């Protein structure tokens, strides 16, 4: 799967149990990240399962003491990019599951519909979407997000900035496309960018 830079010592049963505990703890985070990346909850969960299996198989490359969340996010986003390119997530969006209403916190005038938020998010090119998810929702620093995505910090900053600007424009001007993820034009654009991401900077190295 990858050429490892260094081989860490074989894991004892204790290590494996500790690894499994940590892996279990990040499942909710993986689900949230996956759900943000691809629209449908069932597909997001498939992606998380795939990630768990890959992480388990690669556990000797995980350095204890480093962030399990960051490490597994790398695996998840790479799996997502691969699946995207294989067509699995194209044009998929679960309207029904997204029809929940997000109650606005006090002080905000208008509630934002969860479905609007999610739909707007899904219109972003994948690399901006993931950058925004990591920084704006997952609470990662720009540096951590850059490591996860295998790109420069400046690149992440600019992706987050563009994502924010696009969402602000869409949401505040009420221009959220109906189902733009199913819009053929949007798709061509997204997939083109995706190929670039996956070809070049998509090769993030799990931890370091």
């Amino acid at each position, binding site marked *: 799967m990858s050429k490892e830079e260094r081989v860490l010592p074989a894991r004892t049963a204790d290590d494996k*149990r500790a690894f499994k505990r940590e892996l279990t703890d990040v499942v*909710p985070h993986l689900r949230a990240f996956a*759900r943000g990346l691809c629209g449908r909850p069932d597909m997001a969960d498939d992606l998380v*399962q795939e990630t*768990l299996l890959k992480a388990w198989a690669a556990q000797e490359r995980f350095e204890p003491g480093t962030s399990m969340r960051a490490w597994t996010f790398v695996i998840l986003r790479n799996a997502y990019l691969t699946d995207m390119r294989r067509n699995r997530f194209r044009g998929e969006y679960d309207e029904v599951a997204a029809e929940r209403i997000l109650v606005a916190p006090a002080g905000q005038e208008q509630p934002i519909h969860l479905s609007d938020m999610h739909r707007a998010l899904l219109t972003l090119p994948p690399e901006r979407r993931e950058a925004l998810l990591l920084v*704006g*929702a997952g609470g990662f620093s720009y540096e951590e997000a850059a490591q996860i995505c295998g790109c420069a910090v400046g690149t992440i900053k600019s992706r987050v900035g563009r994502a924010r600007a696009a969402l602000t424009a869409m*949401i*505040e001007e009420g221009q959220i496309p109906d189902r733009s993820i199913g819009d053929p034009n949007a798709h061509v654009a997204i997939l083109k960018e995706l190929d670039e991401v996956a070809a070049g900077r998509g090769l993030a190295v799990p931890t370091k």
Partner: protein
Amino acid sequence: MAGKRKTGGPVKGKKHISKPRDPDWASGLKQLYDSVIEEPIPDTFKDLLAKLDDGTK
């Protein structure tokens, strides 16, 4: 002496050059994400994790 106070000096630490204000939807994004984190984990995941052999048996 007793009343010695620090005065005049510039306040240490940079004063907050506030980062651009978060747009209104930012908390919505966070909530969208957190709402998934707070969902109970489906059994499929527990089953899958249980199957991974960690030598416990």
